[in-house]
C-alpha cells in the first residue's frame, strides 16, 4: 500500500464530505433544524444535473450553473411552505417531517428513474490526472477539494461580512429579538435553506461525476455529512472540513487494508472522536 497516495486520496475525499456537510451545518447553525432528507436532496440534485446534461447535452459545469438557482428555489419553497411550520421547541415535528420527506424523495426518484446505477458524464475530466512526483491526483477529486475550500470561504465571508450574514447570525442567536429589529426570521430561514440547497447542487455534481449513484444512496450521504459536522465541532465550517478529511482518510485507509472495511472504518473513527472529544475538534456553538 502506498501510504502517501492513500492519505492524499483520503484528504481529497474529505473535500466531498465537507461539501455534503456544509449545507447541513449552515441550516442547523441558523435554525437548529436537522434535515434528515439532506442526503436525498443531494441525490435529487444529482438527477437534476444528470437530466440537464442528458437532454440539453450540456457540460456538467454549465448544468450546475442552471441547477443551482433551481435548487435554491426548491430549498426556498421547502422552507417557506413546509419546514417553517415545524420549527419550535419540540424536536419531533422537524425530524419526522424531514424523515417523511426523505422517504418520499427516495421513492419518487425510484419511480421516476428506477434503481439503475447512473453517472454524470464529465468527458475527458473523468480520467484526467496530474502527477506530483510519484503521486497521481485525479483532476475531479482535486476540483472537489478546491470547491469545498471555496464554498467554505464564500460562506464564511457571507456569514461574517454581509448584511444577510448578520441577519443569519442574529436570527440564530435570538429569533424573537432579531424580529424586533426588523428581520423576518421565516424569510431569513427560507434564504438560508435556499443557499444550503445551492451547496447541495455543487456537492451533487461531484457525487455524480466521481461515482455511480442511485435513488437509495441518500441516507448514507446524510450520515457522512453528519459525521463530518460532529467531528469538526458544531458551528465551525473549517472544523467541518477537518471532520470531512478525518472521515475521508479513515475510509480510504480502512478500504486500503480491506475493501469491506471502508465504510466501517469511517464510522469507527466517528465513534472514537465522539468518545474522546464529545464536542468535536473545533466547537464554536454552545448548544
Amino acid at each position: 500500500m502506498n501510504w502517501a497516495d492513500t492519505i492524499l486520496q483520503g484528504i481529497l475525499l474529505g473535500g466531498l464530505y465537507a461539501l455534503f456537510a456544509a449545507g447541513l451545518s449552515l441550516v442547523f447553525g441558523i435554525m437548529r433544524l436537522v434535515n434528515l432528507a439532506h442526503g436525498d436532496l443531494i441525490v435529487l440534485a444529482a438527477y437534476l444535473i444528470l437530466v440537464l446534461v442528458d437532454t440539453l447535452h450540456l457540460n456538467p459545469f454549465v448544468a450546475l450553473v442552471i441547477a443551482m438557482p433551481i435548487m435554491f428555489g426548491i430549498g426556498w419553497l421547502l422552507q417557506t411552505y413546509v419546514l417553517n411550520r415545524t420549527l419550535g421547541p419540540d424536536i419531533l415535528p422537524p425530524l419526522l417531517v424531514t424523515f417523511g420527506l426523505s422517504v418520499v424523495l427516495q421513492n419518487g426518484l425510484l419511480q421516476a428513474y428506477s434503481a439503475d446505477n447512473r453517472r454524470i458524464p464529465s468527458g475527458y475530466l473523468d480520467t484526467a490526472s496530474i502527477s506530483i512526483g510519484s503521486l497521481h491526483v485525479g483532476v475531479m477529486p482535486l476540483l472537489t477539494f478546491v470547491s469545498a475550500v471555496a464554498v467554505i470561504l464564500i460562506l464564511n465571508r457571507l456569514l461574517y461580512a454581509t448584511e444577510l450574514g448578520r441577519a443569519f447570525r442574529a436570527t440564530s442567536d435570538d429569533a424573537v429579538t432579531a424580529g424586533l429589529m426588523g428581520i423576518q426570521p421565516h424569510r431569513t430561514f427560507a434564504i438560508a435553506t435556499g443557499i444550503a440547497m445551492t451547496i447541495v447542487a455543487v456537492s451533487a455534481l461531484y457525487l455524480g461525476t466521481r461515482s455511480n449513484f442511485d435513488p437509495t444512496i441518500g441516507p448514507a450521504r446524510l450520515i457522512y455529512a453528519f459525521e463530518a459536522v460532529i467531528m469538526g465541532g458544531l458551528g465551525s465550517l473549517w472544523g467541518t472540513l477537518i471532520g470531512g478529511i478525518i472521515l475521508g482518510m479513515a475510509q480510504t485507509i480502512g478500504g486500503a487494508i480491506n475493501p469491506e472495511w471502508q465504510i466501517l472504518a469511517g464510522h469507527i473513527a466517528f465513534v472514537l472522536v465522539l468518545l474522546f472529544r464529545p464536542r468535536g475538534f473545533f466547537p464554536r456553538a454552545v448548544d
Partner: protein
Amino acid sequence: MDGQTTIWRVETKTRASTAFAILAMLAIIAGLGAPIYLPRATLQDLFFILTMLALAQSWNLLAGYAGLVSVGQQAFVGLGAYVMFAGVVLLKLDPLVAILLGGIAAALLAIPAGIFAFRLQGAYFAIGTWVIAEIVRLLVAQWKMLGGGTGTSLPASATRHMQGVDLAHRLFGFRPAQAVDVICYWLALLLAVATIFMVYRLLRSRHGLALASVRDNQEAARAVGVDARRLKALVYLASALVTGLVGALIYVQKARISPDAAFSVTDWTAYVIFIVVIGGIGTIEGPIVGVLVFFALQKLLADFGSIYLMVLGLIGIVIMLFAPQGLWGLFASRTGIQLLPVRRLLRGGPIKN
C-alpha cells in the same frame, strides 16, 4: 357540607376505560383461539400486524414519551434476529430459547449504544442511532458463519421441532409447518399484549409521571428531583429489549435472513414511525389505530411498490404538519374518550362531580 369528610382520590379510570378493559379481555381470548377458526393466511396477516404493533409501541414509548427520537431501531431488530439465528444454527438451541437470547443481546447492545448516542443532543441523537445501526449491520455482514453479506436460512428441521409445535399438533392436529405459524402467532400476540401492558403500567407508575414531567419541562422536573437521564436510559433499554425480541420472532417466521433485510431502515423504522405518527404519537391507543390504517393501506397499495411508500410518507408529513396528534388524538380531543387513560384525575372531595 354535613360534617362528613369526603376524601380526594387520584384516579385514572374512566367509564370508557373500564368498558375497553372488558372488550380487550374478550379480544385477547378471541385472539388466543384464532388459530382454530381463522385460515393460515389471515393468521400470517395478524402476525404481521401484532409484531408491527409491538415495534410501534416500543418506538412510541421512546419518542412519544421519553423524547428520544430514534431512527436506528433496526439495529435491535437486526441484532435480535441474527443472535436468534446464531443460537439456532450454531448453538443448536431451541428457537424459543434463541428468541430470548436475541432480546437479551439487543438489550446488551443498548448499553454501549446508549452511552454513545446519549452524548448527542436532541435531533443529533436521531442520526447517532442511525450510525449505530449502520455499524452493527456492517459488522454482522462480516459474520461469515451466518452467510456474511448474503445471509442464510434457518434449517426447516429446527423450527419443526421447536417447543410447542408438538403440543399444537397433538391438541389441535396442526401439521408441523402450520403449527410453527400458530406458535409464532401466539408469541406475537403475547409480545404485543405484554408490550402494551408494560407501557401502560410504566406510564401509570411514578416513573411515568416523572417521564411526563421531563417531557413537559426538563428543568422543572430536575428541580423536583427527577433523574431524567436515568429514566431515559431505562426506557431506551426496555425498548431495545422489546424490539430485539420482536425482531428475533419475526425472523423465526421468515426463516431467511440477510443484513440488508434485517437492518432495513424502511421496514423496521420508517414503517414504525409512520404507524405511530398516523395513529397518534404520545398515546397508547395511537399505534393500535396506526397499525390498522397501515395494514389497510398496504393491502390497497402494496402492488404499487414505491408509490405506496411515497403515499405513506406524504400522509406522515401532512399529519405531522396539520394534525400532529394523529388520528387517535383527533378523535380523543373531540370526544374526550380515553381507552387506556394515563392522565390522573382528581375525584371526590367536597365538590360533587
